[in-house]
């Protein structure tokens, strides 16, 4: 029982616990809080795998921005207790949903444990095999060389998302000042401009 293992077990259990609580909460704010709990635990797992940078970025991006946005929306819409989870589905359909998810989980377990990925690699915070594993430099180097193209594309994606979000969420205003000019007006302009010449 080493420290690594203890940290792993604790954070893994917390991550799973937080995720479960998140989906079964009726109160969306509590959901978000559990999601943060799960996220921070996951960040710990990342860092244990040597991904210090990505772990920090995960917290900054998710906890610092995305989930605050969720909270902001929840508070803006003032959602308190929402309706009962899945109240109007029949128990059978509910069961089916759990069954399907469970099957998917089992299959994934099978993939992990099966012959698809045979792992004898052991992990720990202090034993990375390449020198600067998980460092900012190494991630940045990949992003700006090998994955430059996808990286640039994601910037376009983000821009699109921003524009899309603004357009979707904007209140439609009834008084758009669209001036409708008579058709020949710019023809007249053209003529007068020509006359001026």
């Amino acid at each position, binding site marked *: 029982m080493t420290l690594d293992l203890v940290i792993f077990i604790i954070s893994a259990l917390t991550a799973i616990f937080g995720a479960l609580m998140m989906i079964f909460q009726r109160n969306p704010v509590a959901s978000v809080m559990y999601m943060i709990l799960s*996220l921070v635990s996951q960040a710990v797992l990342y860092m244990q795998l040597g991904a210090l940078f990505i772990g920090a970025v995960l917290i900054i991006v998710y906890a610092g921005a995305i989930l605050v946005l969720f909270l902001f929306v929840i508070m*803006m819409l003032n959602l308190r207790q929402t309706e009962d989870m899945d109240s109007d589905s029949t128990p059978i359909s509910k069961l089916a949903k759990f069954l399907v998810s469970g099957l998917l989980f089992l299959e994934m377990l099978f993939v*992990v444990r099966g012959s698809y990925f045979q792992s004898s690699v052991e992990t720990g915070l202090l034993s990375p095999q390449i020198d600067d594993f998980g460092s900012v430099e190494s991630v940045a180097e990949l992003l700006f060389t090998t994955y430059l193209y996808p990286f640039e594309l994601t910037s376009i994606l983000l821009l699109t998302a921003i524009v899309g979000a603004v357009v979707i969420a904007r209140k439609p205003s009834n008084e758009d000042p669209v001036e409708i000019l008579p058709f020949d007006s710019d023809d007249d302009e053209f003529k007068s401009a020509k006359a001026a010449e």
Partner: protein
Amino acid sequence: MTVPIDAYLVVGAGLFGIGVIGVLVSRNLIILLMSVELMLNAANLALIAFSRALNLMDGHAFVFLVLTIAAAEASVGLAMVITLYRNHDTVNIDRFSILKW
């Protein structure tokens, strides 16, 4: 002794499964969106784990890109939630059945 990589993958699989349950079961659109984020995170965890196992940094780069997509998804998703709420006064996903016929 250290933690074998499989353990991380199992955790990732578990988180993914929980995310799937969340998408299928929850009626609150916001929680549904968060479940999707959870699934993305589960995939990220697996990517990091593989990255470590193979001693390749590429996984990290992918996680970075996935984070970007998650952010984009969240922003657009929340914008849609706000619009839907404005028009229907609810975020209960079962109320939105205009996809029908």
